[in-house]
């Protein structure tokens, strides 16, 4: 093979090298080891459960602050203590039931794994495990279908 052939090939490679590193460093600036943008169905459900867990005290607070607008004794239409008690305790009961539901729906180990900010020293493996990448989302859905089929 001639000398020219040898010089011809590297020049083409050089052109590629000029393009590719840019693409890579651009990806690095976006944070290459980034968390996935989208989750599989199961992980998505878990995340929304956590959202619900975060929301629970807010709901409780809002409902328990409703008595602020009740008319007080002596005023027109004052609320009887028995009704007020009923209101407060029914809300309490509902909140507890929701709390039980959320606590049992969270998969075991979630408090470590599915933390809002990804894994940490102990839950390090979590980053690969429950957080589905878009690619692995498809098999997960497949599994779900299989489970449903078995039922």
């Amino acid at each position, binding site marked *: 093979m001639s000398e020219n052939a040898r010089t011809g090939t590297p020049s083409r490679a050089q052109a590629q090298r000029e393009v590719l590193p840019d693409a890579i460093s651009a990806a690095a600036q976006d944070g290459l080891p980034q968390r996935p943008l989208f989750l599989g169905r199961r992980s998505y459900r878990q995340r929304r459960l956590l959202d619900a867990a975060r929301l629970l005290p807010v709901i409780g607070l809002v409902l328990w602050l409703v008595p602020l607008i009740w008319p007080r004794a002596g005023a027109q239409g004052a609320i*009887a203590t028995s009704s007020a*008690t009923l209101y407060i305790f029914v809300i309490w009961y509902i909140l507890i039931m929701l709390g039980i539901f959320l606590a049992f729906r969270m998969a075991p180990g979630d408090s470590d794994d599915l933390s809002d900010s990804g894994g*940490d020293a102990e839950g390090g493996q979590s980053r690969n495990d429950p957080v589905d990448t878009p690619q692995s989302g498809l098999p997960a859905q497949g599994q779900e279908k299989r489970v449903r089929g078995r039922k």
Partner: protein
Amino acid sequence: MGQLNLLVFVSLAYVIGLFAVAFAAERAARTGRIKWLRAPLVYTLSLSVYCTAWTFYGAVGFAVRSGLEYVTIYLGPSLVMLGWWWIVRKLVRIARTQRITSIADLVSSRFGKSNLLAVGVTILAVVGTTPYIALQLQSVTQSFSVFAEASDGDFDQSSQSAAALWIAIVLAFFTILFGTRKLDVNERHDGVVMAIAVEAVVKLIALLAVGVFVVWGLSGGIGPMMEKIDASEIGTWDVNAGRWAGLTFLAAAAFLCLPRMFHVMVVENESERHLRMASWAFPAYLMLMSLFVVPIAVTGLDLLPANSNPDMFVLTIPLSQGQSGLAMLSFLGGLSSATSMVIVASIALSTMVSNHIVMPVWLSATGNGASVSGDVRHVILLSRRIAIAAIVMLAYLYYQFSGGGSALAAIGLVSFVGLAQILPIMIGGIFWRGATRIGALGGLSAGFFIWGYTLFLPSFGEGMIFSAEVLTQGPFGMSWLAPQALFGIEGLDPILHCLLWSMLLNTAAFCALSLVSFPRPLERLQGAQFVNVFQHGGSARSWSSTLAQSEDLMIMAQRILGAIEAQSLFRREAAVQGIAGLVPQPTPAFLDVLERELSGSVGAATAHAMVGQIVGGASVSVDDLLAVADESAQMLEYSNKLEMQSAELQRTAGQLRRANDKLTQISVQKDGFLSQISHELRTPMTSIRAFSEILRDSDDMEPKDKARYAGIIHSETLRLTRLLDDLLDLAVLEDGRVSLNVTLRPLSEVIDAAIDSAGVLGQDTLRIKRRAPREDVLVRTDVDRLAQVFINLVSNTLKYCDAPEPELNIRVYRLDGQITVDFVDNGSAIDPKMRDVIFEKFSRVGETKAGGAGLGLAICREIMARLEGDIIYLPGQGSCAFRVQFPAELSLKTENV
């Protein structure tokens, strides 16, 4: 009197039972049967230390005085636990990674391990909690006196205070026994926690029992009870809106900030999974605790004389109905509430006092004593024991001093407001990296001061600390400074007034000072670790370079951790560093581990100070922080580099693969060529031999035939010669032994000559398109060789162009001294697969209709290389096209070759 004796007996039996439970739990923990001890249920029940005697007895009194308002004390904590994902979970995680021992330790550790801050929180906690412990003593003695009255016993003031003293002594003894058994607070007090859990069950059952008795035993079921409630004094909703919201907030804040709550909820927490159960189970517990409060209150109002103490309805209702067994159970419930609170609060306070006040004082008193040998664990344990005894005794004295009146009963909320002052810096500390030590000190001082001025000191009553005049007119007649009407805002409930102003000014001072001050490096380090506790488990280091001697560190660690524990720690760390033996290198990483280990025993600030004494204060600097940041940036860079390298390797692999493909193709071609060349050589040779044999052997041959045969032989030899010439030419070119004959000629002439030589002009088979003006370029090169290339390309078109009316377009471009000549015909393009090999020797495209040896383009490429140019196949023209590129002026270097 008999009943009182029975009561004393039952109480003693109960206390002995508690001791037994605690002993059994400790024993089980030692023998490793700890699974059920550390169940989430036990954790949840231990949280019930929130429900003290004040809530057990006092809730009913609260309900009698202000209706449903009492429930706010339970609503706040319920919300905090239901929202565990927000705050509690983070606190628990931080406490575990940072080995936090108390709330003072948390605050101090977050703000750069500042001991000053820890001392501030400790003082606030002691001042806020001691009256509260006194309240527990009072409630127990009060319940005694209720029984005494019921049995017409003699239970006067002196015997009341004697009873209070005895209770204090027993509680202090219990706490010292089970609370200071071990040093490492993170190892948890299994005995205490178990006892608390049992007490939680007792108080819940007691209150539920009284409630059930009241509703079904006395009132005839839920329906009649409800009617009775609505008919009573507290029958309509009458709760001040401000107090409703304010007390809910206050209870939530106190739930997080009370030292005893922090202790059971965060320090004693075994696993974050326990939180998940506690998140619903503890609100359920609180709901049950408050379920029967209003019925009991209403029944008490209904049945008992008007002057009876509503705080004691839980006891007096069963007594008045002759249910002494139920009353006993109720008494035990109250006793449980009081004792569990005193035990946990004194453990938490003693830890804070010993870690943040005694140890620093002791350290500085013994000078550079951190490296002196000798076990200091006994110093720490002793200081804790003394602290427990002192706190309980202080509470007893407070009880004596205050006279145990209704003033004490009000201290519950006062204490809550005081401890809630920690909330802004705690929440700010774990969610805001910009919070600084200066800000925390400012906020805490402001809150503490306002609490003391507007609530705590006035709570002693008129004339005790503040005169009535000061209370109403303000100090020195400045009415806007009146303790309970700051800035002239009067008519507000004192609790609400203090809560509003203290929280407002506390938070404002904290935020403002944090914004204007600049944190020290250690603060920034700790701030990042606290706020981002879920991102990294504490990888950043707080020690930089060090001159420490490992032996000194070893001596110090042995004194605090104990010889065996310290040695195993050092051996473990040495193994991590890959060193055999006991003495690891004093690297920053090791110092960090050691400090964290020590802080589990003596708190972050003291541990930091002790390590600092030996290391010589070579703590982390801003540069180190930046270096850490650099390090992670470098790691990122490194991983990027690796990615790039792997991408390059992939590219190289791709190139190699392509090269290999090409080589394989060439090898196939070569095989093809060998048969081709032998065929090419053989065909003329065969005819030459045949005709020469004919000439030799036949004598009678006509001259015409003879000439014909000789002509054939001649032309065949010419063909052979041409082939050999080509081969020779190529060999010479490839070896670089060619000498160039550089002359200056216009390009158009070169092309003219090439077209002439290719023999196009004679025929009209090929139409050639050119643009004369563009070809008007002078070239200094070996024009003969250049012409050879052009001839080859033109004759190739002539031979291979498969269009019906062949046409060749010759375009010339000139750019930066480089001349480009494109030869584009209108025939079909070359198969992409073949494009790589057409310039190789002996390659021919497809079936050759005009027999060439396949050397032409190979020669062209060699020539162009000599002329510092190139010849390539030009794709994308829709037809066959070649591009020839060469410099207009050949450099001298090549010329001389």
